């Protein structure tokens, strides 16, 4: 007797020794290593804030309204990404394209906010990569995250374009899902950065 699972190319990809698609497992392993990467950057920032707490008047530099807005934007892009993956699994290409486009659009807004924030810090607040220890750790940490967002936008954009070609197949839903895992990870890293780098500074001890 033939069944749907025997014919579905997505189910065929699960026939590995682990039972998990190889691409997906490789992405989870990469994300685990990226956790350690961001862990070191966050540690460096927090340690220097702890060792030299009075190096900058951080609340005067930050613009929490803008950062809060960009956080909402990134969370919404994650929601659209989840819908893109769901649409890809349903083989609903028009819906997948709209949601992917929305994710990329929100990602670009987030990047725009970050670029605006950086130029505001550099030109209006005189905070640069080499002006103080706070500037060094802040720009390296948030800049690395921004590079991850930019790479994610490029990756999702390539799948959006690819989905318009004849070469896009049903099994490519897994590739969209793997790209989605990366995008969600960028979102969870920002959830941590938003709290430990920005919000904690506003607590008056």
């Amino acid at each position, binding site marked *: *007797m033939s*069944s*749907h*699972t025997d*014919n579905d190319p997505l189910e065929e990809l699960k026939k590995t020794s*682990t*039972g*998990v698609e190889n691409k997906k*497992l490789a992405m*989870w*392993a990469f*994300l*685990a*290593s*990226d*956790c*350690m990467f*961001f*862990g*070191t950057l966050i*540690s460096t920032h927090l*340690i220097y804030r*702890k*060792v*030299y*707490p*009075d190096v900058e008047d951080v609340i005067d530099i930050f613009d*929490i309204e803008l950062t*809060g807005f960009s*956080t*909402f934007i990134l969370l*919404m892009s*994650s*929601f659209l*990404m*989840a*819908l893109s*993956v*769901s649409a890809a699994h*349903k083989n609903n290409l028009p819906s997948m394209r709209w949601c992917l486009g929305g994710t990329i659009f929100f990602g670009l807004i987030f990047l725009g906010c970050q670029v605006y924030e950086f130029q505001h810090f550099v030109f209006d607040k005189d905070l640069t990569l*080499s002006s*103080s*220890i706070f500037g060094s750790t802040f720009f390296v940490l948030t800049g690395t995250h921004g590079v991850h967002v930019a790479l994610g936008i490029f990756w999702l954009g390539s799948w959006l374009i690819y989905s318009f070609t004849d070469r896009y197949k049903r099994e490519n839903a897994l590739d969209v*899902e793997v790209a*989605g*895992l990366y995008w*969600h*990870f960028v*979102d*969870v890293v920002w*959830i*941590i950065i*938003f*709290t430990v780098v920005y*919000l*904690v500074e*506003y*607590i*008056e*001890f």
Partner: protein
Amino acid sequence: MDASQNTSNSVDHHLAEEHQKYFTFFNVSIALIMLTAIELVIVYVPIHPGIVMGSLVVMSLIKFLAVIWWFMHLRWDMILCTLVFLSGLIIATGTVIALMLLFSEDPSGAPMI
């Protein structure tokens, strides 16, 4: 039951499952927005800083877990994916905590650059 009927039932079940996920994703995103709004407000509320700090940690943790559990499909994937990710997350968290405990404030102030 013939092959075509079997396939049709399986596809219907798959579609129903994905349809259900839409509402889950929507509810999770609403919860994430509300938690972020609370985070933004709570830092201005004149209460004990320890309570604010604790609330921020708990809310960030909930947001973090919500995204990886539902948006990143760990809820529906095999446990192996969770274990692989947790291995890196635990090492990273342990490193951050250990380093934070190792260092203390420098009484001589920040070095001049």
